[in-house]
């Protein structure tokens, strides 16, 4: 059952805070996420050769889990979440994923039993629904995809997530051609349709197994835009275009919670502050602590309303200070300690604002994702919450308005290129129909012709 959001979870933006959410989630071994404290969420990737066999992979994750849990108790961290993002072997062979989850959870239970550390295991299934040439969202692989969730849920995973790919074929084509309608269609319409389908099924798996349907992210699209946009001096995509894609993505990621997910949302969903403002679910975020995986231009700001604080991903290997998972989980834990101290001292809102303001004017992406502006994008989404197309379009238009106001204030500065890109996107949006059926029809005609890998049957069309 998909129930669309048409109102905000929070009465005002200022009510949002890190370590707190409207609807905390109990998970794993004594953990409650968003219930008054922030928790580190460690993410990691096995070394390249570890994927050669199931045995090697399980052993690698056992090392990772033991290292991380040991470091957490060594420094006295009260809670931790481990996130295993599946390598393709683990999702294509669901019993591999189940075996890894079982091995990890066994170790975590030992630490919980001995030290009382609160912990939970997230497994993020790989979206394997494609073949060599095309997305195959509803084809033969769908049952394997769902079996991967089932196996993990049965064998120890407490939180189920995925980084789904729906809409990516049209998005990839459009983002490289400054095609606003295509970006909106790929993320806001096609992506949302796929999200509604898969998250209804994932929520059923979670319910059946007594675990948590956590959430998704528009990593495949909005993060692709953010990465292509890169740093201030990169010349691959206007940052104003990237933040419009991000705003559209909020409507897409929201579909998971409308279909039964309860959070915590995935760390790389930079749209999660918008999601939180609408849904009140707990969210994971990454920022300065994910520099091991990629650079962004809002390293502090993303911490503003997080419930889990993540490092995105780091390859497992040795460093001077221990293995990478030990170094990064320790950094995450000290950040959480700082947030939790501010909560106890009644200074959390000040810390939140300091984190936000340190990046708010660095770049249009951070400006729009600052919690006060993110809240406004949320309001634009729920205004037409029942209609995936209209709410995505509303979010994009509100994003353009927010950036425009920032520039007018003199505090947000754009290059001429960014300004022109923003003007183009805004003009494109204003030229789009308000009729969802017409938009769908027009886009189907256009992208069936232009995007060779676009298969309408992937969306039941």
């Amino acid at each position, binding site marked *: 059952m998909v129930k669309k959001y048409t109102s905000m979870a929070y009465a005002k933006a200022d009510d949002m805070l890190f370590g707190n959410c409207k609807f905390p989630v109990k998970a794993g071994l004594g953990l409650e996420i968003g219930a008054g404290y922030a928790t580190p969420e460690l993410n990691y990737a096995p070394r390249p050769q570890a994927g050669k066999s199931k045995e090697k992979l399980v052993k690698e994750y056992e090392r990772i889990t033991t290292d991380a849990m040991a470091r957490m108790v060594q420094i006295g961290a009260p809670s931790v979440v481990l996130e295993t993002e599946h390598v393709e072997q683990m999702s294509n062979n669901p019993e591999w994923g189940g075996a890894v989850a079982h091995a990890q959870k066994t170790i975590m239970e030992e630490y919980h039993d001995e030290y009382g550390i609160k912990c939970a295991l997230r497994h993020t299934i790989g979206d394997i629904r*494609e073949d060599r040439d095309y997305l195959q969202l509803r084809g033969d692989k769908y049952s394997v995809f769902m079996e991967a969730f089932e196996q993990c849920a049965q064998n120890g995973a407490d939180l189920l997530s995925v980084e789904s790919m729906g809409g990516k074929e049209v998005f990839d084509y459009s983002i490289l051609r400054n095609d606003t309608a295509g970006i909106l269609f790929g993320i806001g319409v096609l992506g949302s349709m796929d999200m509604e389908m898969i998250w209804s099924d994932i929520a059923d798996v979670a319910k059946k197994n007594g675990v948590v349907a956590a959430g998704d992210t528009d990593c495949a699209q909005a993060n692709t835009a953010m990465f292509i946009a890169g740093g201030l001096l990169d*010349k691959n995509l206007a940052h104003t275009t990237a933040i419009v894609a991000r705003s559209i993505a909020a409507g897409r990621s929201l579909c998971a919670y409308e279909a039964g997910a309860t959070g915590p949302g995935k760390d790389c969903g930079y749209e999660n502050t918008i999601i939180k403002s609408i849904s009140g679910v707990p969210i994971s975020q990454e920022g300065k602590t994910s520099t091991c995986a990629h650079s962004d231009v809002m390293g502090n700001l993303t911490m503003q309303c997080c419930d889990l604080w993540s490092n995105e991903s780091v390859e497992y290997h040795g460093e001077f200070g221990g293995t990478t998972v030990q170094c990064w989980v320790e950094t995450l834990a000290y950040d959480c300690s700082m947030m939790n101290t501010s909560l106890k001292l009644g200074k959390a809102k000040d810390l939140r604002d300091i984190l936000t*303001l340190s990046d708010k004017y660095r770049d249009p992406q951070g400006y729009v994702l600052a919690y006060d502006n993110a809240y406004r994008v949320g309001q634009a989404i729920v205004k037409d919450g029942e209609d995936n197309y209209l709410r995505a379009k509303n979010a994009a238009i509100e994003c353009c308005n927010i950036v425009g106001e920032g520039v007018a204030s003199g505090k947000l500065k754009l290059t001429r290129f960014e300004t022109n890109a923003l003007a183009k996107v805004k003009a494109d949006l204003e030229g789009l129909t308000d009729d969802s059926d017409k938009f769908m029809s027009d886009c189907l005609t256009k992208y069936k012709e232009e995007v060779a890998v676009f298969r309408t049957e992937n969306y039941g069309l």
Partner: protein
Amino acid sequence: MLDLKLEDIDGILVRYNVALEKEMTPDEAAEELYPKDEQIYPIAKAIYEGEEDDVIDGLKAAIDAGKDPIALINEALMTGMGVVSKLYDDGIIFLPNVMMSADAMLDGIEFCKTQTTEVPEPRGKIVCHVAEGDVHDIGKNIVAALLRASGYEVVDLGRDCPVDEVIEAVEKEKPLMVTGTALMTTTMYAFKEINDKLLEKGIKLPFACGGGAVNQDFVSQYDLGVYGEEASDAVKIANFIVGGGDDIEKLREEFHKH
């Protein structure tokens, strides 16, 4: 919420891209670079603007005026694309402009081919693929488009490409280099297998690798590996090979920046 005063922001962050923005607009910069020939100019300009229909109209007019279709590929289409590439390298235009120009140029080349029985000579052949097990192909698509836009013939093996398929393609096509992209640490291990199988067969050619999780340390572990940090490095590596040979050590000296 708390807020910063306008005058306080500069002490916290610097928008170097705003501070250093060039005075000249992209259109003005392009105008200075177009060839002056009255038949060639509109084609080059249409390439820059990414307008396929205008490219074809310009080609038709030039052919009607007596220009050779094959010669137009180099004199007009590649020249127009050269303007685009220079502006991109100089940081004046952005990647989507290049992609749209590349689309227009490829349409132009196809049109020229229909106007003659001659076959245009590419600058060289390059095999591109995404690592086995990896379906993230936007990086490879950018690499392939930039290579084609620079006059190279691209044999695109697509994504999730089995190791043996890459080996077979290299044996068959005899390219000047292979490119491999991967987003994930576990899939990029396939690059090492490709390297080993090529060497087993006595084939030695540059294997340019890059993408999400790929780094210089990893690529340096296998003999044929040359690391490309940016998609546009693929073109620079190819140009280096065409101009200066395919010695892997020299390529690493040039392109391994870390």
